């Protein structure tokens, strides 16, 4: 096996440019004659726009133009769509409020853009934006999620601010099971609103060529083809073939860069309108206000158990905050990415979940690392841990009693998924050993002797990744298929250019995908180049989210490579005067079986482009494409254990240890996987202990900077102890499941189970800030 093939800890080749400041991000791109966009944003959570007076702004130095929502509408620019149709219990479609890129009649959250100023310099654009005089008629906002359905109606025709009222599962079976339960555990909690905070804020540089009517949009998108598709098909910016979207290096996304946003759309339109390249880069304040936020649920959850501690049924009612408008995939997050995951790793035979999704006068809420699955894991794992405490059963033992067993796969859950494979007890036992579970009581005594409280908490999470089988996704309301494309182009000298529709914004695809193709074709790692993020160079793509890249995009490359090998065999057979069926391919060599005749991959590649005497049915060239559509989701799962120490004097929680044993199936690059897990855990710990996006009663975002929104830092975290178990995915050629979100999915429940264990309280709201912890201790 090559030392840079599948399974090897190959250092990330892209890091050389990232850590030496040579990355090429959207804001690094400057085009001749470029002007700058600055957006004018609503200071009010809800108001009618009476008049916008831009006359002073238009006369300001350097101003190229000032445009409002009416200008875009007059030019035929349509509303931003939501790509996933969810139906209510009664069969009716979800309610979709129009979302023009720039607000026209009303503004519905603080920070919503309603005008854009284009000027020669950024400073001039900022100064002119300050001169736009807007007369608002302030309206009473809907801020509280709990009271959202009783508040004033935000959007015309959307009663009670309800987008949909969705359910999944067998309610009658659940009610019957609860009626005969020996014990019922009930929790009511919030899943706190998070603000994504990628290092690189969103940005766009757009240019329009009037002679050819072609746009080029450089932007911070996780899925440039989807951005192009939406801008062409729904927003009506330009025909798809006249629009090129390039996502160069992108500094983190975490879901927040999946979506098609107002600012990028308006900047692109303004490039045509002003006939100038237009650049917009969000500042951090704009990112806080206008990036799609994550989570924000209110949930009541109940678990019914029999006397032996067997789970009988689960009942979950959730109200999900969508914010002021439906962002691109917002509707799918609290439904198909949440309700379907509520079986967790357990055999719970009956589950019923109801989700009421509502609008409020806050920033739109959409997918953020984990997207629905962290919320589901939090429900399941907080319930299970609490049930264990209430019934006096060891929490590890209660889980063992209820795990789906290895011989039960494929396992159909009562919430519409079919798990292909897993071994949940294996990861639990490995994690217990790593944390030295037996030694915990002694460690707790040591802490208590020092006046501290110590707690330990589990989270045995599951996720559905590798989005997604197109047929199933489309059945469930998705507006797009969720396959991925890949192209393997062998150059005449034998080097390989790989094109993937996945997008890397920190995940390390340039390394991982090169390992896959290098391993498969037996060519040196250095000879494989990975190209992504450019609709002008790639066939098609659906981008990166939901831990799908290797499972779906990597599988497409395997399929394309298989076609390369098949074609190579035909070429080799021709050259070696043999039959293709008699040619074997192994480690970069084509050899005729039972002979000493062979050709290297490089010789075959060269021959493909210098085709001597090829027969009529053998085309020159060696380049193949594939669209891979997964047969099922993948189901990464694992066991996370957090151990915390709490200072009762100050309420400060110290995360002392964090063990994660994950089953991601086969692993291409263990070092990259560990990095993904580390980052995910940090974000999950951030949700549990530090982060909270808060709007005050009047609808103002009061956590709008890093002064008030607390991101995790290195000194908040221990050195993580991560390990893996492996049950290969049964339905993709690499046996992989995906690792990008696991940390963020598993960690919050593990940490909060540990904190509530330390405090000996039933529940505590996230984030477990020192003030909350201290108050809980005073109340106990």
């Amino acid at each position: 096996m090559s030392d840079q093939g599948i399974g090897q800890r190959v250092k990330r080749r892209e890091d050389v440019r990232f850590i030496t400041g040579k990355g090429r991000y959207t804001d690094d791109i400057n085009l001749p004659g470029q002007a700058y966009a600055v957006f004018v944003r609503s200071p009010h959570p809800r108001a009618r726009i009476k008049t916008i007076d831009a006359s002073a702004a238009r006369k300001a130095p350097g101003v190229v133009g000032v445009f409002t929502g009416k200008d875009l509408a007059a030019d035929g620019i349509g509303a931003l769509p939501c790509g996933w149709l969810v139906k209510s219990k009664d069969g009716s479609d979800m309610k979709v409020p129009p979302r023009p890129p720039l607000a026209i009649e009303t503004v519905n959250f603080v920070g919503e853009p309603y005008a854009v100023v284009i000027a020669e310099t950024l400073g001039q654009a900022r100064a002119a934006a300050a001169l736009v005089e807007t007369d608002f008629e302030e309206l009473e906002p809907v801020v509280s999620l709990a009271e959202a359905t009783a508040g004033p109606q935000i959007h015309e025709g959307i009663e009670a601010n309800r987008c949909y009222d969705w359910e999944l599962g067998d309610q009658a079976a659940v009610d019957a099971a609860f009626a005969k339960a020996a014990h019922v555990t009930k929790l009511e909690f919030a899943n706190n609103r998070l603000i994504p905070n990628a290092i690189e804020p969103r940005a766009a540089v757009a240019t329009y060529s009037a002679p050819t009517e072609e746009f080029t949009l450089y932007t911070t998108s996780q899925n440039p083809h989807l951005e192009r598709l939406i801008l062409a098909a729904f927003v009506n910016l330009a025909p798809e073939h006249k629009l090129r979207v390039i996502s160069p290096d992108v500094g983190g996304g975490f879901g927040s860069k999946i979506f098609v946003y107002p600012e990028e759309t308006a900047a692109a339109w303004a490039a045509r309108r002003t006939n100038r390249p237009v650049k917009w880069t969000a500042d951090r304040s704009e990112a806080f206000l206008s990036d799609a936020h994550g989570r924000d649920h209110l949930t009541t959850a109940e678990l019914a158990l029999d006397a032996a501690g067997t789970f009988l049924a689960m009942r979950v009612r959730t109200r999900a905050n969508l914010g002021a408008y439906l962002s691109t995939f917002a509707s799918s997050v609290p439904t198909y990415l949440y309700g379907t995951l509520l079986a967790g790793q357990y055999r719970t035979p009956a589950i019923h979940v109801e989700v009421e999704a509502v609008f409020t006068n806050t920033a739109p809420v959409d997918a953020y690392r984990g997207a629905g699955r962290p919320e589901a894991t939090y429900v399941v794992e907080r319930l299970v841990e609490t049930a264990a405490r209430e019934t006096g059963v060891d929490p590890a033992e209660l889980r063992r009693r209820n795990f789906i067993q290895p011989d039960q796969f494929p396992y159909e859950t009562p919430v519409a998924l079919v798990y292909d494979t897993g071994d949940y007890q294996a990861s639990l036992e490995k994690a217990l050993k790593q944390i030295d579970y037996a030694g915990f009581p002694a460690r707790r005594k040591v802490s208590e002797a020092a006046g501290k409280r110590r707690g330990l908490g589990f989270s045995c999470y599951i996720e559905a990744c590798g989005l997604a089988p197109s047929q199933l996704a489309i059945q469930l309301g998705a507006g797009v298929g969720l396959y991925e494309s890949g192209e393997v182009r062998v150059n005449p000298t034998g080097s390989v250019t790989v094109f993937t529709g996945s997008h890397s914004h920190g995940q390390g695809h340039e390394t991982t995908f090169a390992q896959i193709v290098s391993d498969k074709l037996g060519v040196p790692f250095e000879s494989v180049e990975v190209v992504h993020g450019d609709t002008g160079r790639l066939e098609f793509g659906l981008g990166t989210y939901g831990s799908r890249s290797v499972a779906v995009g990597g599988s497409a490359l395997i399929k394309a490579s298989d076609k390369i090998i098949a074609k190579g065999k035909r070429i080799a057979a021709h050259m070696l005067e043999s039959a293709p069926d008699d040619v074997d391919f192994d480690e970069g060599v084509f050899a005729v079986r039972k002979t000493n005749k062979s050709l290297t991959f490089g010789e075959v590649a060269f021959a493909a482009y210098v085709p001597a005497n090829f027969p009529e049915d053998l085309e020159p060239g060696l380049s193949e494409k594939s669209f891979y559509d997964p047969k099922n989701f993948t189901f990464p799962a694992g066991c996370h254990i957090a151990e915390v120490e709490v200072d009762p004097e100050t309420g400060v929680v110290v995360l002392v240890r964090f063990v994660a044993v994950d089953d991601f199936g086969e692993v291409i690059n263990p070092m990259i996987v560990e990095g993904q897990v580390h980052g995910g855990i940090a974000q999950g710990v951030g949700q549990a202990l530090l982060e909270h996006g808060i709007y005050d009663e009047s609808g103002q975002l009061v956590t709008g900077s890093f002064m008030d929104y607390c991101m995790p830092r290195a000194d908040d975290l221990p050195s993580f102890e991560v390990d893996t178990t492996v049950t290969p995915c049964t339905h993709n050629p690499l046996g992989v499941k995906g690792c990008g979100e696991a940390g963020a999915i598993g960690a919050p429940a593990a940490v909060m189970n540990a904190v509530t264990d330390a405090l000996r309280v039933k529940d505590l709201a996230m984030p477990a800030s020192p003030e909350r912890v201290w108050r809980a201790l005073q109340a106990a």
Partner: protein
Amino acid sequence: MEQSGEYRIESPAEAVWAALNDPDVLARCIAGCQSMEKVSQSEFRAKVKAKVGPVSASFDAELTLSDVDPPHAYTVSGRVKGGPAGFGRGSARVELAPDAGGTILRYHVQGSVGGKLAQIGSRLVDGSARKLAEDFFAAFAEIAVEPQPR
């Protein structure tokens, strides 16, 4: 945001009352005040350059007097607009009580902010507002004892 305070001014209540209604006096008491005009018997308009935490901007204020009880008390309420810096709104009840040749001035302010002021300044608004009020009344306590030009 809510706060109260009390000052003793070495001047009779009538004189303090006159000063409280004099745009020139008010302008001199507000640090960064660029203009202050009395639009009507009960309305003032002002332009003030101010800094709240990292947010500094020129604010346009429109103030209205109500519940006027000369020379004992009034309520001043208003809106302050700072363009991209956001806005504020609130009211202050000011009461005067004679006290051995001088006057005790008591005030109670309540208000809220929006836009950038709330987004990045919310934690700093209380402190900044307290300082603005303290500076204002400290200056006012001095200026109000000066003989006012008639």
